[in-house]
């Protein structure tokens, strides 16, 4: 499903990831845990093709390595559901419209196609009563649930979450983690990056620890045994 093969990423002189290799299968949950600047977000940006590796190969589903054209890149992103720390909801439209936008982007254009999907996603995250609310009228936890609804509405094979509880207080964070876990249990693969070890524990996924761009602990694939960091990173 997703494979990093000896991936290194540099931003100018700064090394963000160094010779990182790992793989996740369909329906699996993988959590990268590390401090700020450890390279977590670079992993997600490589998966979504926002950035290209300096060396190595990133494979996502059938999209293998190299720089994708704008069309294939958009197609790749439509197969993913993405949740950001800062929610990234469009502030000038309601919760319903934010979620509906993802459905329309996926090519389902009629109201008959859009409405049931959005209603389903709203039910999944428990936001039916807030469908007409604008983002600024929601709490942080509700915003993140709306963002999760937008991520799951097209039933993607993989949900990516970049520090999903970063802007939330404990209770909302626990609700969001529980929600992500439920989405995963319903069949979606989950790739989460976080600074919080307790999120990784709660999600009960395979955990990889990142430090200064290197994987220092965890298992590179679902079938491999946990090995020291040097072996994991190749």
């Amino acid at each position, binding site marked *: 499903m997703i494979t990093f093969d000896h991936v290194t990423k540099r931003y100018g002189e700064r090394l963000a990831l160094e010779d990182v290799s790992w793989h996740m299968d369909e329906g699996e949950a993988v959590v990268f845990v590390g401090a700020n600047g450890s390279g977590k977000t670079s992993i997600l940006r490589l998966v*979504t093709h*926002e950035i290209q590796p300096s060396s190595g190969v990133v494979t996502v589903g059938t999209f293998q390595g190299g720089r994708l054209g*704008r*069309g294939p890149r*958009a*197609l*790749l*992103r*439509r*197969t*993913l559901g*993405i949740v950001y720390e800062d929610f*990234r*909801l*469009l502030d*000038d*439209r309601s919760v319903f419209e934010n979620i509906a*936008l*993802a459905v*329309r*982007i*996926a090519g389902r*254009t009629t109201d008959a196609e859009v409405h049931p999907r959005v209603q389903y996603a709203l039910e999944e995250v428990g936001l039916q009563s807030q469908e007409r609310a604008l983002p600024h009228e929601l709490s942080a936890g509700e915003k993140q649930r709306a963002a999760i609804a*937008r991520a799951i509405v097209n039933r993607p094979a993989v949900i990516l979450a970049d520090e999903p509880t970063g802007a939330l207080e404990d209770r909302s964070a626990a609700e969001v983690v529980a929600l992500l876990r439920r989405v995963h249990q319903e069949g979606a693969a989950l790739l989460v990056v976080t600074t919080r070890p307790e999120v990784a524990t709660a999600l009960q996924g395979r955990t990889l620890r990142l430090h200064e761009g290197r994987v220092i602990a965890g298992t590179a694939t679902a079938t491999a045994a946990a090995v020291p960091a040097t072996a994991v990173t190749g």
Partner: protein
Amino acid sequence: MIGFYLREASRSFRHHRGLAYTAIFSLTAALTLCGLLLLLTHNARMALRLIGDRREMVIYLKDDVTDSARDVLIGRLTDLYGSVTYVSKEDAWRDFGRQLGDPSLLEAVQDNPLPASLRVKLKPELLNTEAMEVTARQISQFTEVEDVRYGQEWVRRLDEMGNSLVRGTIAVGITVALAIIFILYNTIRLTVLARRPHVQIMSRLGASDRFIATPFVLEAMFEAALSAFLSLALIFGLQQALASRVVGLVFLSPATALGFVAAAIACAWLASMLALSRVLRAVGA
């Protein structure tokens, strides 16, 4: 889907009213300038056509041409060049006397020296300098013809005037088209930059370039269409105000007015496509 795109375009327009109004104001000014020249050209060309339609060729016949030869010649000229009116020697003499104002002045002249002539009202496609020169040359080849006159210099000047008007309109049209493209190119760029976070989010969600761009293209086309209608309204108002003072001043034909609006919309489409192809990359979409 078009309903969704129109809603998105309307949303973008409402959110950036200042930019949109500035664009509409600038476009209206440029289009009004172009429209005024179009009105001037339209009316001038109509006037020139009216004058031009009166252009005719005078063919002087030899004195020894028989009636039957003359009739054959009239038939051939009618087929080839246009309608023909025969002016006999006597008619010409009478007309000359009338032009002098005092027919008694001619009583001293014993013989009528004026030749019979044929006046040819040329077909529309022959009403230009080159065609008239060729026609005159061809007609002068007939054995019955003494001379052919059609006021070459006058015809040439009339044609030059018409051509200058057309060239002027094309030059101003191109200048205004470039101005429209420049204005809308920058307006769309600024609008997209102002909506940068929205565009980036859509891109992260997997929106294609077409999905992101279409509302902006529609917005630009709407602004151009609105500006074109506004400028036509201004020009119509001016024409109505001047109609009582300038005899024969008419408004643009419906086809020209529609073409004017269509050209503005086409420029807007081109400008927005150019702007979006660059700016979407620039905002990292």
